[in-house]
Structures are given as C-alpha cells and as structure tokens.
C-alpha cells in the first residue's frame, strides 16, 4: 500500500494542474461566498454571535459527561433506546444488529458524515441489506461508488453533464442538462424507496441535553421523510454534538446556515425527542440513538486542541481554504476534509500517518477567521507539526537545523557562505530543474530569486 502522504502528494499534484476541476470548484465557492457575506451582514453583530457560540460549545464540551448523561436520560425517559459505542466497529455492530432484529429488507438513509466515518453502508451491504442515500448529493456519489467530496456539498466536483450520464447509465433516464430535470429524476427514483423502507437512518447536527432531542438540519426534506415513514429510526452521532439548552439552537441554527451555505436558515431544522408518542398519528415505533466516541475522547484529552470538538461541521473552513480549493476534497483521503479534517484526523486515525495534512497549509489563518465557533484551526496545524516531531523526530531535519544554527551563529562562516552562494548561483542554470538541483522542488515550477549583490549587513556597514 502507498503511504497516505505519498497518495496525498500524487493526487494534489494531479489536481492542482487540472484547470477544469479548479474552475468548477472556484465557480461553486464564489457563489457561496457572495451569499454568505450577504447573510452575515444581516447579523447585528456576527462577531458577538461567534463568541456566544464559542462559549456555549466550550460549556458543553468541558462538561461533556454531565450533558451526555442528561441527554441520554431524557431520551430514554420517553422511550428511545440509547446505545454507546467506543469504536467504529461497535457502532456498526449495534446498527447491523438492530436492522437484523427488525428483519428489515430496505434502508433509507439521510446524510450523516459520522456514518461515512464508520463506513456504515459497507457494513450494512456486507450484511445483505440495501441502503439508499436520500440526500441528492449523497445519492449521486453513492451511485458513483465514491466518497463525498465535501462535508456539506458532496457532489460539488461534478458537472450536470456527468450527473446526467450517471443517471442514464444507472437509472436508465433520458439525457438532460437541466439541473431541475435531473433533480426530478432523483426525486421520482427515491419516493418509492421512502415508502418501502423499514428502517430510516439519519445523522445529527445537534444533541440537546436539556430536553433529550436531536436536531437535524437539511434543505431537501429527505431527512424529514426518513424520520417520518419507516417503522424504525436510527440516529448516529458523535459525542461532541451536545448543546446544553434547547434555546441554544436559536443561535446555532442560523449560524450553521450562514457559515455553511450562505442561507439565513436551512430549509428544515427538525428536532426529534422520541419515537411516536401517545396521541400522535405517525412516526417510527422505535427510535434508536447511537452515541459514538471513536477517539473523540483522545482529542478531548488534548486540552490545547479541545476546541476542535466545538466543530459544527458547517464546512466554512473548507470553503475558504486555498489548499482545499486547489487540491479538492478527495485528495485528503479522509472523512473530514479541509482545515478541520487536517486538525482532527491525526487524533482520530494516528498522528504519524496523517501529520502531512498539517503541513499542507499556507497558515494564512482564513479558516480560523471564518470559523463560526472560533476554533483556533491554523494554530492547531502548527501544534500537530510540533507534536509529530516531538513524538518521532526526523534525524536529517534535526541535523540540518543543527548545521544551520552552527553557521548562523558564526558571522564569518555565514559571510563565506553568502560569497560562495553568489558564485554558485552563476552556475545554477546548468543544473536548474534537473535531478542534481538542490532547489529542485522549488525550481520545477518557479524561478529562484537572485541573491542581492550586497547583503543588508554589507550595505549597513558602508552607509555608516
């Protein structure tokens, strides 16, 4: 198997040269930027709202045990089954068992990044069940046997032409380049699936401790249908989704919508507090909530980076990241892409395997500035680099820095180096860009700046 960092480098190199891909992503994200700015400016104070959101999440995460217990108790009191899973495998087993016990034939699913994280669909299909993704973007990438390209916009990398070709091949539909017709093809294909499904699986955006509710944010109504029609509903969430109070949603729902998609409020924000209650006419007979740790407590134990658990998965940091815009979502090879993915993946899947993501950054800080819950993203990338090096030092880097320190601490030696470099520079064109070029990784795509004829130090001496 190719190491993850090599795979990343290969894909990144390929995609940064793919001008069609870059054009597609930049057009899509430009539209997002315009509507996000318009909606942000309607806030009386976006900055104060950010601070209020950051402090609310801080309160929840730093008392996580208390709020999780309250959340579970409140749900159980109204007939919901709450399951706790330490690992991805346990979560998969819990869900597969529920589906088996119900002798289910088909499953309808609404978008859940946590389900991607634990590869739930593979597990269910392996156990012999049909799972259909109902979010349009997720449905498209599922038909392509592909991972979501973006945590909020899963099919952002595809053109309508590619989607039409996919639907022709997989669904036998007529060719069209009209997005509305394409959406209606999916709508028709999925309507029957909702009605036939025995099980509905959803993700969760927020978990309300005070009232024992989950809250789901969506635009299409697919999660509403998934939670209304099948007899059994299963919701999977990471333990960090907790908010203390119901009214916290009054702040978090509009912030998620604005930061995530440039909307004032997402189409449907729905809270579920249990299965069908006495006196209600529909809804699932059984409701299961699966709480997943899967190394989140590892991140929690790192007090310095604990605020990464404040993340509400809005995707805003992906949308502004110059690296994401150039290398695209699939290049990361992770469930969570972009700056937040680069910060948390080393905690979830191992620092040494995923430390390269923290170096794939210009440290421009756009992510930190845009984050609606004020996660200190770009500093966490630096901390990951530091931690990776402390845990497993690279001998030649250490040696190189020792050599560098040795030279710069000796002015005469440093002067000599400068003189030699000026001479060497004259011969550089002979080897420029070849395998013998020590500056090859730079000179392959860029010009090396010329050394000035006189250094600052020399100029200073002369003037005096």
């Amino acid at each position, binding site marked *: 198997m190719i190491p993850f960092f090599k795979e990343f480098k290969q894909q990144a190199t390929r995609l940064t040269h793919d001008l069609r891909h870059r054009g597609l992503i930049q057009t899509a994200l430009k539209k997002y930027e315009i509507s996000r700015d318009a909606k942000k400016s309607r806030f009386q104070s976006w900055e104060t709202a950010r601070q209020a959101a950051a402090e609310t999440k801080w309160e929840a995460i730093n008392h996580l045990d208390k709020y999780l217990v309250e959340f579970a108790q409140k749900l159980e009191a109204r007939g919901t089954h709450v399951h706790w899973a330490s690992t991805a495998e346990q979560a998969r087993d819990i869900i597969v068992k529920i589906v088996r016990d119900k002798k289910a034939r088909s499953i309808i699913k609404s978008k859940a990044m946590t389900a991607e994280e634990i590869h739930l669909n593979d597990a269910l299909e392996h156990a012999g069940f049909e799972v259909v993704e109902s979010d349009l973007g997720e449905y498209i990438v599922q038909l392509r046997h592909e991972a979501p390209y973006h945590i909020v916009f899963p099919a952002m990398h595809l053109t309508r032409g590619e989607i039409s070709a996919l639907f022709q091949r997989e669904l036998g539909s007529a060719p069209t380049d009209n*997005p509305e017709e394409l959406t209606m093809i999916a709508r028709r294909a999925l309507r029957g699936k909702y009605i036939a499904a025995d099980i509905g699986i959803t993700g969760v955006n927020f978990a309300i401790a005070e009232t024992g509710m989950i809250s789901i944010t969506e635009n299409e109504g697919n999660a509403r249908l998934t939670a209304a029609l099948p007899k059994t509903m299963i919701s999977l969430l990471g333990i960090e989704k907790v908010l203390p109070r119901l009214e916290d949603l009054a702040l978090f729902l509009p912030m998620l919508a604005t930061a995530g998609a440039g909307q004032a409020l997402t189409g449907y924000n729905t*809270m579920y507090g249990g299965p069908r209650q006495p006196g209600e006419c529909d809804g699932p007979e059984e409701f299961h909530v699966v709480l997943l740790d899967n190394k989140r407590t590892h991140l929690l134990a790192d007090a310095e980076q604990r605020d990464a658990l404040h993340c509400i998965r809005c995707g805003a940091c992906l949308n502004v990241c110059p690296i994401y815009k150039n290398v695209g979502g699939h290049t990361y090879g992770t469930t969570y892409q972009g700056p937040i993915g680069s910060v948390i993946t080393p905690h979830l899947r191992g620092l040494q395997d995923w430390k390269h993501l923290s170096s794939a950054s210009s440290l421009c800080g756009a992510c930190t500035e845009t984050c609606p819950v004020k996660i200190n993203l770009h500093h966490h990338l630096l901390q990951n680099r530091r931690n990776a090096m402390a845990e497993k030092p690279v001998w030649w880097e250490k040696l190189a820095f020792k050599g560098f320190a040795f030279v710069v601490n000796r002015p005469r030696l440093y002067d000599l180096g400068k003189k030699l470099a000026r001479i060497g520079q004259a011969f550089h064109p002979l080897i420029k860009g070849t395998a013998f070029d020590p500056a090859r990784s730079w000179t392959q795509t860029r010009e090396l700046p010329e050394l000035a004829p006189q250094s600052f130090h020399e100029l200073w001496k002369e003037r005096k």
Partner: protein
Amino acid sequence: MSEREAILSRIREALKVSAPHPGAHDHNEPPAGDLRNFSKWLPAVGASQAEQIALFRANSTELRTDFRLIDSMSHMVSEIASISGKENWQKIARHRGALIDDALSMLDLPSITTDDGYDVNALESSDAGITECDALIAQTGTVLVTSRSAGGRALSVLPPHHVVIARRDQLLPDLPSAFALLKKKYADSYPSMISLITGPSRTGDIERILVLGAHGPKKLTVLCY
C-alpha cells in the same frame, strides 16, 4: 464495565486538565455584553407587527414561499378555493383543527385526515397537505410546526404542496422568541417532532444551482389572516 461507563470515565479523565477560554487566540478583545441575549446579535427585527409582517413577506419572496395576507376568514375560504381550482386539486390531506375546519368549510374535495391514521400511498398521491402551525417567524420567514400541531410528521412534507393556515397573532419576531414559545407551550411534554420550515424543499447539489422540490414540497403557501 459497560461502554457507557467506559466512555464517561475517559471523558472525566480527559477533563481533569482544563481548556483555554474560547476565542482567546483572537488578538481583538472578545466582544462583551450579555452574550446569552441572542436577539441582540442575530439579524434585526422591527418591533411593530407591520414591520414584522413586511419582513416575513420579504423573506418569503426570497425563499419563494407564497405568502398571502388575508383580511377575513371568508376571504381565506375563497383564496383556498381559487388555489384549488388553479392547480386542479383532485384530493387533499389535512388534519383536524379549528382554523382548518373553517378554512376548508367550502372545499368539496375528497380528503384524508391524518389524525386517525392514514395510508401512506394515499397521502403521497394527495395534491396538497394543509396544516396549521405553532408560529410564523419574521426574522427568517420560517413556519414552526410540530407533530401535534400539524397533523403528524409526514403531512407537511410528503404531498407536493404544503399549505399553512395561520393567524396574524401567531407571528413572532425572531428565533429566540420561537424557542421561548416552545418551552412555554410544551415543556411538560414535547411533541416527538418539532420542525422549523423555511421555504419549500430545495437543493443546490448540482453545480450549486437552486432547484425547488428536491424531496419535500415543491410549493409552500402561507395563508395568514
């Protein structure tokens, strides 16, 4: 040890070290003031009912919700009849409620009433789902419904056209007041579903181009009298 206990003990162990105060990395002074008073930071809403109606209308236009302000119940009845005629409704779905009973009193169409249980296929093939609501929210152009106030979970999302019948005094200024209402009305026993509906069903999943009616209703009409 159960997984519940294992997770909780890992959390308690982790929380022994405290985390820095949020927002401290920002070199600017963190904004002061009563942070919990969200109404002061969220988008502004006028104080008078006229301003709030105007804002709800403006938001509806942007969202492509068909919002109609009606001066009397008798006009409400004729408004519904005219929509029904224009869209050639053959059958409708509804729930029981004083407002709906009045509003549909003249509509002579086969209908299913979800309160008593219903056949999903019959609901799916209805031309419209007609519901009441708990509140309208001016700030975002949102309709607040619950499984108790709006005929269950599916009625407001399965038929292709969702029609909401509301009273003027149900209009609330902003999201914090909507959550305050939920608490006041339901704190003893919440409905199993509470939904904030903001515009008809929509998607931008294909090239970020807006399409209405992705899975839920293609049309949302709010009739307010």
